[in-house]
């Protein structure tokens, strides 16, 4: 892609060249000033403006863009190695605990917020500037070149890659007229001069190029639009639960730079029922057959409710926001009675699948307000429990034989100090494991904790669905831009830009004795030039055109003379 861009840029410059001479001169002359080969500023010669200009050229060079791109990739590595505050704050807290000396240092370098770091922003802003600075002027150049008339014909057409010549008794001006007429009929853009005709065709190549570059800018702008005004969020919803699209209601909220809490589209979604069906036999046994999250939503507070069936790849669209069904699982319902005999906890707790074939799910239950001790439980939910040699496993993802196995703890959950923690992990460092057998519980069964600490009952289970909420105002413009870029690319590949030059000159007669005016001989030279002949075939086209020109000229001459007239010499196509 980059090579192609650079190569094409060179070709464009040549075609766009103001140079009088086509062909090798043009190649040699104009493209000397390729990017990165700008003359270095001499010592003390250049003022501030000169240096700025030089700096700008360096920044917008393809090489710099590549270096920046590489830097960007490099800079995102710490983002995937170190825990990130915006993605997993609990892991950051753990990192602080594990590396008390290193963590503050890393924090100062934005190690836990890599994608929001000033140095990261610096890289991608520079990259953006570099790309825009590279593409914008090129766009203008292309636009200029697309409007330019064909250049003057070179003096010696024989040097061009394609050349042919013939002689005719027809006068040079008439010859050129009929050649120009033919080329116009062939839809060339024609320019005439003293003794020459210059014609050019294939401007669609430039249009395609232009379209491609403008579309690239459009793509960049769309991405920026999405990054500034878009947002993403996730929410896990248990059957029967409702959530509101606010920062408070989202489990994960990743807003664009210019998004504030008030910008979120104020819809609410209630999960009426999630249902999953699985293939029950054959090699595909246990594979999901169908997931449907039956929901009810409204687009504003207190608004009318609408029903919708959310399915994988069948998102809901509310006010331009897309809501995708991205996951599902089980939420066993637990009721915990503490040592004082009061129910301190009674709710469904989402467990997270740790494997897909049997949907074995792990989760924790925290009862921070139990007396006399805070209680914690960690364990697994097995939709279809089987015992594999003393090890618990789930044989099927549907809840055919649901069991829960939990390890019980009492002590300090570490939640009262104000330090946020994940609801999916249990910090047992200040807790004591209770001597309770983690035997699997069936729905309705209880486990009584020792020392009068209370009782836990597994009352049943519900299902949950997790939703991804995506708002990207740049999505549609990005699609349009991408399609336009593709169309432009195809156009510029398929259409070649080519020039045909015709020169005609009267050759001094060997003898002027008594002959008619027609006896004078005009030598006609035809030259052809193309760039970006990706599709090939210019050679053939040129040969055809050259002979057509010859026939045209001869035909016209013959028609004008009525009959007779000297025979022209044969077409000699040089062709390379």
């Amino acid at each position, binding site marked *: 892609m980059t090579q192609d861009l650079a190569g094409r840029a060179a070709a464009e410059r040549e075609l766009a060249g103001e140079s009088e001479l086509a062909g090798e001169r043009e190649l040699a002359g104009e493209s000397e000033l390729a990017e990165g080969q700008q003359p270095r500023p001499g010592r003390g010669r250049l003022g501030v403006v000169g240096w700025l200009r030089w700096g700008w050229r360096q920044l917008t060079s393809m090489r710099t863009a590549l270096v920046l791109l590489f830097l960007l990739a490099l800079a995102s590595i710490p983002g995937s190695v170190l825990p990130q505050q915006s993605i997993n704050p609990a892991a950051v807290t753990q990192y602080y605990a594990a590396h008390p000396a290193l963590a503050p240092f890393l924090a100062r370098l934005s190690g836990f917020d890599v994608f929001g770091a000033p140095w990261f922003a610096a890289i991608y802003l520079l990259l953006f500037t570099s790309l825009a600075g590279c593409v914008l002027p090129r766009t203008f150049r292309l636009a200029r070149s697309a409007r330019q008339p064909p250049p003057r014909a070179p003096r010696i057409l024989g040097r061009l890659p394609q050349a042919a010549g013939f002689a005719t008794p027809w006068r040079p001006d008439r010859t050129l007229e009929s050649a120009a007429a033919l080329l116009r009929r062939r839809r060339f853009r024609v320019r005439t001069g003293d003794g020459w005709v210059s014609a050019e065709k294939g401007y669609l190549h430039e249009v395609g190029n232009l379209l491609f570059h403008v579309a690239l800018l459009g793509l960049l702008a769309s991405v920026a639009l*999405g990054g500034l005004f878009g947002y993403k969020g996730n929410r896990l919803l248990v059957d029967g*639960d*409702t959530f509101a699209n606010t920062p*408070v209601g989202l489990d994960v909220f990743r807003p664009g730079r210019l998004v504030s809490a008030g910008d979120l589209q104020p819809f609410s979604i209630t999960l009426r029922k999630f249902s999953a069906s699985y293939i029950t036999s054959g090699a595909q046994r246990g594979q999901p057959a169908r997931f449907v999250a039956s929901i009810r939503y409204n687009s504003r507070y207190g608004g009318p409710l609408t029903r919708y069936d959310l399915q994988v790849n069948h998102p809901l669209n509310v006010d331009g926001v897309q809501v995708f069904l991205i996951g599902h699982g089980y939420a066993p319902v637990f009721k915990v009675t503490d040592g004082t005999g009061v129910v301190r906890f009674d709710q469904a707790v989402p467990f997270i699948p740790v494997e897909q074939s049997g949907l074995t799910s792990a989760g924790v239950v925290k009862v921070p307000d139990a007396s006399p001790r805070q209680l914690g439980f960690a364990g697994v939910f097995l939709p279809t429990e089987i015992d594999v040699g003393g090890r618990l496993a789930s044989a099927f993802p549907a809840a055919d034989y649901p069991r829960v196995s939990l390890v019980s703890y009492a002590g300090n959950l570490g939640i009262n100090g104000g330090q946020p923690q994940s609801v999916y992990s249990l910090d047992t460092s200040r807790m004591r494991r209770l001597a309770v057998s983690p035997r699997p519980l069936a729905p309705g069964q209880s486990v009584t904790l020792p020392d009068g600490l209370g009782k836990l009952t597994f009352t049943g289970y519900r299902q949950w669905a997790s939703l991804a909420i995506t708002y990207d105002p740049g999505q549609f413009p990005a699609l349009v831009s991408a399609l336009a870029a593709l169309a432009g690319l195809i156009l510029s590949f398929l259409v070649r830009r080519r020039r045909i030059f015709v020169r005609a000159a009267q050759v001094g007669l060997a003898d002027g004795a008594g002959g008619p005016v027609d006896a004078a001989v005009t030598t006609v030279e035809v030259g052809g030039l193309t760039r970006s002949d990706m599709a090939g075939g210019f050679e053939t086209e040129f040969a055809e055109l050259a002979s057509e020109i010859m026939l045209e000229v001869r035909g016209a001459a013959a028609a004008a003379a009525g009959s007779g007239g000297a025979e022209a010499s044969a077409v000699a196509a040089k062709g390379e």
Partner: protein
Amino acid sequence: MTRLRSAAAAVVAGPAGAVRAVLAGPVVAGPVLAGAVLASAAVLALTSCSAGTIADSTSASSGFVGGSYSSTYYRPGSRPAAPAVGGTTLTGSRFRLAADRGKVVVLNFWGSWCAPCRHEAPALAALATHFKNAPVRFVGDDVHDSPAAALAFERTYSVGYPSLSDPGEQVALAFHGTVPPVAIPTTLLIDRTGHIAGRIVGEVSYRGLRALVTKILAGQS
């Protein structure tokens, strides 16, 4: 601003990291060098949405970490009207915000699962007692929670004021277009005329909230 974001995200985003990691697999910013420009566009797309800010034009944006908080005060005249919210409390009685016109209302959004909420609970309970004889109404809004756990929380911290049961965040949603809560916990202060006079994002401090309530109560500008 960065701190505000991280702390707020810390509160809100707790569960999600785990969910995402398990369900969707970790999303790693790996630019595929399919093409210089397109790849960079992809990288830009990725980076520009993975870093988040809960920015709010009205926020004073002084960060909060641990015990400190971000507090915003609105002068009389620039206070948006509070929406007409109401509902059922955890104990089953009805509550309407509009019924407390003439009082300063301290509306605290919380959840029993939320660590910073637990940490600020004693201060709120003590302030409710402190302002017992003043025209100040404390009310909670318990989001994303179950009544059993919420009531257990209230018993632990001897919370003497009622809380709306709001598992679907509908009360929070009703503040859309005014001064919405942006994290759990968030505390909104509503003046005697039913206008929002202040917002505290993150944990409140006893002194900070007391000063703010006193100021709004006095009607100073």
